[in-house]
């Protein structure tokens, strides 16, 4: 391995992508942590978390705030993806393809000794794509089921009541899946197998690129990677995209606002049951 391979670096994640990741990391962890006592209320861990965070009502508030942060993160991600695709005309390198299935299978065969070569992959490996799309699926399920639980009165004006406990079941099941998938897949893939610091430094060395994303490196070297359009083209596309994005932003903000404020589900205080007077003697005082 030459020293050039170690010193030559390529930008993998610009700073705003890293902030995006950090936002998701924080909100996801908070959601998982505050979700645990709600899914397993009697457990030792659950109770410990509960007491640490000041009780169930406080815990739910924190859970909701983390969810709001994740909603903003998602909205932001949609906007920048739109910019990337419609203005910059970047390759949609995160889209899954048949090649990913082939790569995955080849990697597995290589591991168990049925294939000689580990697959050579591009900007995003099948492992990364799997995780990204799992997150998209998870966010969709958690968002939809979360809405049902956050706003059951509104939801049941249009939907059967049974969907509320069904949403609770799905929210819990999906949460377990998501947290464990992160622990198994993400932990192993980017922390244990090799501590991949690209999401924090933004950079990868040529050696790392050669190792993990050889096809992307080849594209960069061949000059066929994402090429920045000229300024005039960008300006022209921006003129179209920005109004749409503004509209989309307003729509998403309204959506988030509605999510949070659709209803006052329950009265915070309930009247004590006063069915009758307490002291009602049958006969005058003896």
């Amino acid at each position: 391995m030459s020293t050039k391979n170690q010193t030559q670096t390529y930008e993998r994640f610009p700073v705003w992508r890293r902030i995006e990741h950090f936002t998701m990391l924080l909100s996801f962890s908070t959601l998982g942590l505050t979700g645990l006592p709600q899914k397993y209320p009697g457990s030792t861990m659950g109770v410990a978390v509960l007491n640490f965070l000041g009780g169930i009502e406080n815990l739910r508030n924190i859970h909701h705030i983390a969810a709001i942060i994740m909603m903003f993160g998602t909205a932001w991600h949609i906007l920048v993806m739109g910019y990337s695709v419609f203005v910059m005309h970047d390759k949609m390198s995160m889209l899954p393809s048949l090649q990913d299935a082939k790569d995955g299978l080849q990697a597995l065969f290589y591991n168990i000794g049925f294939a000689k070569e580990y697959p050579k992959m591009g900007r995003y490996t099948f492992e990364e794509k799997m995780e990204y799309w799992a997150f998209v699926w998870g966010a969709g399920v958690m968002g939809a089921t979360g809405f049902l639980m956050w706003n059951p009165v509104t939801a049941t004006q249009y939907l059967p009541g049974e969907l509320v406990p069904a949403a609770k079941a799905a929210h819990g099941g999906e949460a377990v899946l998501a947290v464990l998938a992160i622990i198994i897949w993400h932990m192993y893939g980017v922390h244990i197998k090799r501590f991949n610091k690209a999401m924090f430094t933004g950079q990868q060395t040529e050696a790392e690129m050669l190792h993990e994303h050889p096809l992307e490196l080849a594209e960069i070297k061949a000059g066929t990677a994402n090429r920045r359009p000229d300024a005039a083209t960008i300006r022209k596309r921006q003129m179209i995209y920005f109004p749409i994005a503004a509209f989309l932003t307003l729509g998403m903000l309204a959506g988030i606002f509605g999510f949070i404020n659709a209803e006052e589900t329950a009265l915070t205080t309930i009247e004590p049951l006063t069915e009758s007077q307490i002291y009602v003697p049958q006969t005058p005082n003896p």
Partner: protein
Amino acid sequence: MRQIQSSRPRVLFRASLILLMGLFFFAYAVLSFPTSAQAAPVMQDEKPADDFCLACHQEEGLDFKLGKDVIAATINPTQFGNSVHAGEEVGCTDCHADISDYPHPKVKSKNARDFSFSLFVVCKDCHEDQFLKAQDSVHQKAIDEGNLNAAICTDCHNPHTQGRLTGQTSGELTPSARIHVPETCAQCHSGIYDAYKFSVHGNALIEEGNMDVPTCIDCHGVHNIQSPTTVSFRNTTPYLCAECHTDASIMDKYGISTNVLDSYVADFHGTTVKLFEEEFPGQPTNKPVCTDCHGVHNISKVSNPQTGVALKDNLLQKCQRCHPDATANFSAAWMSHYDPSPEHYPIVYAVNLFYKFFIPAVLGGMIFFVLTDIYRRIVNRIKGVKHA
């Protein structure tokens, strides 16, 4: 002079003899007919028998006035004879210790209630356990706050007529005593009694003599009755009801589910209340407990057409107490103590089933891949092959 001198000792002798005889007669009279006030000092260590008291006190209409109150001092000898006190040979003056003869010492109490308060402390002499428990009760608390209507021992247990309440060997409340418990409480809590007697519990007790249903004391306790309006009482309500409602030996007779506590705790409301009960028992929560949907003293069968919560409209009304904007579909969000199954709440059942297989399938696949990767790395290291 001599005569006089000689007659003097004779007179003295006669006088002393008469005096002595008189004394003997007097002593005899005191022992047989203790009717004179002068006899009292002699009687200090002796107690008159109950018959002696009853000789006067069985007389009808033996009233005396205390302030504005008239106190009936008539004691029915048959009723007293049947009482547990008479049976255990506890006599009148064991409690009325200041009285040993007639006329009785003057009653210092200003009124009837005051009189009861001055006397009931004597119960402690024999019933210390119960007495001390009552000292910790909501009744005693009310008394301390100046509400003299609150019950003391004798309001529930008339000492002149109280029969045996517990089995002599078992120590358990006898069925006949059990049936009359609500009537005792009704003396002061008649409004609650009226609700209770038409409830599924009260009706079964009063009409059928059913021994499975709770009376007042099963939920409220006996002597150390605590306030049922406190937050901690409310937060522990599910466990109170569950004492019977998770007991299959009782519930199976009536075909009632014993899954009620588990299904409640598994749901949003129950989870919250459980956490409050365990972690912050004194803090109020707006989540409902059993009584918020089923009622308190007026609990009805869930199938009751007017009030039963198994009926959608009745349940919705309960929901709307806390969720005022709830519409028709909303009440189905509560799974009515059912475990989701293909018959009840099939969508929830399907979701659970999906994740039951989906989670292990996805995670199992991931773990399998990770393990093969670890295996390859180890093999490559042993062989000295650089990993791809």
